[in-house]
């Protein structure tokens, strides 16, 4: 289709996509190719990178393989990023859709509800949620989802608000379509593009958020993640800067590629930005 074509022509977006694709592949199959737990203490601690060909990226404070950590960490960072975004979408889209479609008091109630979540400083709320429900992948993913859905709801509401008076929606009403059908089949597909763009950026910020939580000591202790690696390495940053540097770069690259992809999607899906045409 048009979008895919214009996306594939966008070099920057393709770079982002390729990097992301590689990371996803690593996350999916890496652990099978790379046997052994990332927690195993395999060498002397603080082995610098590129010194031992078996442990290419060196070892950490306890002599664990950094590369193994990176590979396993890709899995969790991406998982948390994607799952929390999906949850946020699952909360935000219906909420925004109902508010925008029905308007009136439904809108008022739902938007007040959203406003509450937007008023509480979101990073602080995430910290509190994770601390209260005790750090685990579930609580972290949940907390990230809870603080990131309001923008989705607002966006979807806005889209629905403007699309609901579009003539094709009116036509569907005249056809005697049910509201459910109109929401799901007429309006939603047409509001997807900004949602997709937002979602790609949300995955990026979810990954950042996860790492920030880990940095503050609120990561899941049982699971190797990039954020954990930085958090664990922060105390030894002076003697082994690479331990925080390497996963930091991994995060930055992932987030960057997601942003590039998101930007590409935005241009592809939103002709106002890319084209010079009036229509």
């Amino acid at each position, binding site marked *: 289709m048009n979008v895919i074509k214009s996306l594939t022509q966008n070099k920057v977006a393709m770079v982002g996509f390729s990097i992301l694709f590689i990371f996803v592949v690593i996350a999916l199959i890496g652990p099978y190719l790379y046997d052994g737990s990332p927690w195993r203490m395999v060498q002397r601690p603080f082995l610098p990178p590129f010194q031992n060909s078996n442990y290419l990226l060196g070892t950490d404070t306890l002599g664990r393989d950094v590369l193994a950590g990176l590979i396993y960490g890709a899995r969790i960072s991406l998982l948390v990023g994607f799952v929390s975004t999906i949850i946020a979408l699952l909360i935000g889209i219906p909420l925004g859709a109902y508010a925008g479609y029905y308007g009136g008091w439904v809108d008022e109630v739902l938007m007040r509800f959203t406003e509450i979540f937007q008023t509480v400083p979101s990073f602080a709320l995430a910290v509190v949620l994770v601390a209260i429900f005790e750090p685990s992948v579930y609580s972290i993913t949940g907390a990230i989802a809870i603080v990131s859905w309001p923008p989705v709801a607002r966006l979807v509401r806005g889209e629905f608000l403007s699309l609901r008076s*579009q*003539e*094709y929606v*009116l*036509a*569907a*009403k*005249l*056809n*005697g*379509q*049910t509201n459910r*059908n109109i929401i799901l089949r*007429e309006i939603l*597909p*047409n509001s997807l593009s900004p949602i997709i763009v937002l979602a790609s950026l949300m995955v990026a910020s979810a990954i950042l958020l996860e790492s920030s939580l880990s940095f503050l000591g609120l990561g899941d202790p049982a699971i190797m993640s990039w954020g954990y690696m930085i958090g664990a390495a922060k105390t030894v940053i002076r003697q082994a800067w690479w331990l925080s540097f390497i996963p930091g770069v991994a995060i930055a690259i992932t987030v960057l590629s997601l942003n590039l992809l998101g930007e590409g999607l935005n241009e592809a899906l939103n002709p106002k930005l890319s084209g*010079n045409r009036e*229509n």
Partner: protein
Amino acid sequence: MKPLLKVENLSIRLPAGGDREFAIRNVNYDLMPGEILCVVGESGSGKSMTANAIMGLLPKVITVDKGAVIFDGYDLASLEEHRARTLRGNRISMIFQEPMTALNPLMRVEDQIAEVFLVHTKMTRKQRHDRTLALLEDVGLPDPHKMLRAYPHQLSGGQRQRVMIAMALALEPSILIADEPTTALDVTTQAQILKLIKELQRKHNTAVMFITHDFGVVAEIADRVAVMEKGEMVELGNRDAVLNNPQHDYTKKLIAAVPPLVSPKREIKPLQVPPILSVENLCKTYRTGGSWLSKARIVKAADDVSFELHRGETLGLVGESGSGKSTVSRCVVRLLNSDSGKIRLSGSEIQSLGTKELAPFRKRIQMVFQDPYASLNPRKTIGQIIADGPIAQGMPRKDAFAKAAELLALVELPIAAIDRYPHEFSGGQRQRVGIARALAHDPEVLVADEAISALDVSVQAQILDLIETLKKRLNLAVLFVVHDLRVAAQVCDRVIVMQKGKIVEMGDTRQVFESPAHDYTKSLIASIPGANWRSDTTAVTASGVQEGAA
């Protein structure tokens, strides 16, 4: 006389992936001092591009390929930017189509106009102020002192266009380029603006290049006419010659598509009783912006509206923008809930039925929408769009798609269209799909709200023909909402004239047009541009003109 401006062999290349290779190609014409040259042609024919080239305002990606635009000894097409800048707004100025968006929303009117003096002259602040005030008076704006302080959003469309004109004429330029300056305005406003431009043009002996697609406007103001088609200038001549004796086929086709301002004689059929649709004392009031702190804006969009509609008849609903035409038509099809009044569809009251009870009536009254782009869901195939209605009413999928295929044939679209998406069709074709969708329910009443306003004249004519044919064939009752009185005169059996939510006049079309009773109707008819042109010829239909496949 020496021409003020000479356009010689001008060609402008479009970037790769554009509609065609050249936006305009080998265009030649002169502009004489003090004349009004009208440039006409359908959308995309390159009218704006010509104007932009003269102004030096072409988008960066678009380049002048060859040719020259000679003004005052300079070639505008190749002039350095800083030199061109001194001419722009000073010797040559321009007015744009959209008065709503052409002014900076964050700047007061005074500042926007005074900016011209600031850039090109050394006037003091006081002088600028005085000149601006004088200009506003010149263009006939009421209460100019207040206007100075106003922001664009506080003005009506016509007022904004006057501000634009004031701005353009501030330094008494030799050339004024007007790119469809009245298209977005109501007829009465349009008439005033046209009059104003003409007056000012006479007063200052300005040469005007007036871009329009409305032949009525051409007839009203042009000295000479240039016709453009797909980037080429196909005809150039005196107004009367071009209008009454067109040479080029394209010009002929265009002119033929313009409905004459004469209602054809119709056999006045006795109206069937009872009417299929009757509306009694319909009222609808909008309240916006109100909260417990601020006063709401209250608009009576439909105020005690009553009329009847019969099978086989086309009832026109005319009136200026905001008069309540759409409101009435939406209430009738129950897209809007009316505040009070009765709506009867073949005797049954439908104004207060709930979603469930309404379902059986839905299919009996259908609507064709204005915007052929916005009225089709871009994510659905044409087949789905047409079949959705019957499916929602309980028809099996297969049958519904079979029906969709039939309907496509009925509206003269290829059967292959069924699997394609809306964006693959032209505006006219889309409007056909919209009609097919409405007909999928076998309705008895068809409401068409400005169903042709967004289309080019030639395409308009085709759609009008189609509706007329279908009406006869299916014995439909059509409520036809339109603001173009020429169109109304052509297609309607009876017309209703609305003003500020009220019906001010209702009657047989011919009678209303020939001897309007209400003052408002009179002023409407008087405002129709080029009223004298083709007021006596009979209707020429443009049937047989096929649209190119998309």
